[in-house]
């Protein structure tokens, strides 16, 4: 026994310093690892939200407001910002209380949280941007039922820490808002030939200088303003995204093939 203890002691006494150093080094390495992992996760979250898993283009969630209110850029921007804000806040809150929420009743709780934030946004918009509040109409309170928001709460925020969840909310919201904006731009230019028409409703009086007359149209192109135009424009956007994806994929395949060829040449020689 003593034989066994002695070497241990000698071992312990001598390499304590080195083990401390090792520990510190290991901790540093681990911290570095965690940092880089976090970085990679943030990057992944950004790519997922903005491109690969875009709520508008890929998940096709929240199509109802997406198609209904994008007849002008201002409306699209208003709804995009409102959704972004609700998404960040609800993701952060859901993530913060995730340890105390019973699994069985999580959905009603999520809905209540989202509804609370939507009410806040709605009251704020009613107070400060009354014009846009009126033109968004029912679609502002309907953010509660936007599947993209409850989807993120359920799929990501309820399992991950607050910071990442908030960042996820930001990226998903941005992805959604960008698609809303794109649709708004296409439909407003085709429909009435302007951009940022009525921006003063959202940003205040100074913003009326933002209005750009792109084309002089004698009469509106009603199809672009009516919902069918939104469906057609949305379909074209999705097709464009898929075309870019398949283009990138084809390019990648060619690249790897080239690499393999080079390796084989080296092996032979």
């Amino acid at each position, binding site marked *: 026994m003593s034989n066994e203890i002695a070497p241990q002691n000698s071992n312990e006494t001598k390499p304590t310093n080195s083990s401390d150093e090792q520990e510190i080094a290991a901790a540093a390495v681990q911290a570095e690892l965690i940092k880089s992992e976090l970085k990679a996760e943030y990057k992944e979250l950004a790519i997922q939200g903005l491109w690969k898993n875009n709520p508008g283009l890929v998940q096709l969630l929240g199509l109802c407001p997406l198609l209904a209110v994008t007849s002008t850029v201002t409306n699209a921007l208003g709804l995009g910002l409102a959704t972004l804000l609700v998404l960040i806040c609800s993701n952060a809150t859901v993530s913060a209380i995730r340890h105390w929420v019973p699994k069985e009743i999580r959905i009603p709780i999520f809905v209540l949280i989202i509804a609370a934030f939507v009410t806040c946004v709605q009251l704020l918009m009613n107070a400060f941007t009354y014009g846009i509040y009126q033109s968004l109409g029912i679609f502002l309170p309907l953010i509660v039922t936007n599947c993209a928001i409850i989807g993120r709460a359920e799929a990501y925020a309820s399992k991950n820490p607050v910071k990442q969840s908030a960042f996820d909310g930001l990226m998903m919201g941005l992805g959604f808002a960008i698609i809303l904006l794109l649709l708004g731009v296409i439909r407003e230019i085709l429909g009435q030939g302007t951009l940022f028409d009525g921006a003063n409703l959202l940003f205040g009086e100074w913003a009326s200088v933002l209005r750009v007359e792109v084309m002089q149209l004698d*009469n509106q*192109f*009603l*199809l*672009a303003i*009516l919902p069918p135009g939104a469906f*057609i424009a949305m379909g074209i956007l999705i097709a464009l995204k898929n075309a870019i994806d398949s283009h990138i994929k084809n390019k990648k395949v060619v690249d790897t093939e080239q690499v393999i060829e080079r390796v084989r040449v080296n092996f032979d020689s």
Partner: protein
Amino acid sequence: MAFWIASSPHNHNHTKTPNLMRLVIYATLPGVLAQWYFFGWGNLIHIGLAMATALVCEFTVLSLRKKPISHELFDGSALLTALLIGICLPALAPWWISVIGTMFAIVIVKQLYGGLGHNPFNPAMAGYVMLLVSFPLQMTIWQPPLSLVAVDLNFANTLTTILTGFTVEGYSVEQVRTSIDGFTMATPLDTLKTNTGLGLTVFESIKNPIFGDNFALGWEWVNAGFLVGGLFLIAKKAIAWQTPLSFLLSLFICSFISYSLNPDSSASTMFHWFSGATMLGAFFILTDPVTGATSNKGRIIVGLLAGLLVYLIRTAGGYPDGVAFAILLCNMSAPLIDQYTRPRTYGHLKGDK
């Protein structure tokens, strides 16, 4: 020496798409000529514009899709679509109406769905409905027959009206459409609808000069022209006789019932047959082999449904004529109708046994 034995079918049909399309284009000639005689050059100019646009759009999309261009560009289907759009448009509509309509019909309704043979909706009618929904003002400036127009609408005048909105002498479209009495003239269908809405009886409203001596001045001859062309197509077996027959019969029955119940506020059966786009729709659009039903029973059902819808839209709807809407609705229901009217396969009992 051994004979090469081929399996059935031994009797081949040598009709190719370009031949069929050319035949249909020729068959529209009587109707188009009648249109030219009664309404002037407007529709011919629109047909030309639409055909040029259709060829350019078809060429662009086919080269984007990397399809055999020379083979598909001249199969006549795009030209036929353009022709039908040009026939349907109001004669004095601005030039961009036919350009936008044809672009929409070829690029979105036909090519985006996969090209000829894959489009669920008739491209010409979808393009027309898109125009009607998007530009209600331009799509309702119907020109009255030439004999009622005070301005001399020769080729140059019509061309400048379509391009700039004014004739060479400087009359606007609205002035051209105004009769000597100062009333703006619409189509017979439109006038009848407005008048019955105002409480006039049909008998009172058909005294308006645009109704002419028979049913609808000019329009009756255009419709008769398309009827002749359609009968020619049936005789050539280019289209099935079931669809137009059941469509016309259904429209006849509907209008006959309402006319016999209430002759004061409903137009006669022949008025429904020979005004608006009835004959064009019956023989040239509803019989589209791609978007219509394929079984004989299905064709009869589609025709009946279309006749009922045309009658309902004309009498109870918001638009004066409903052929385009009725045909799009029938296109939508055609796959389902085909599903339920599958003919019995030879050698099998009824019901997939």
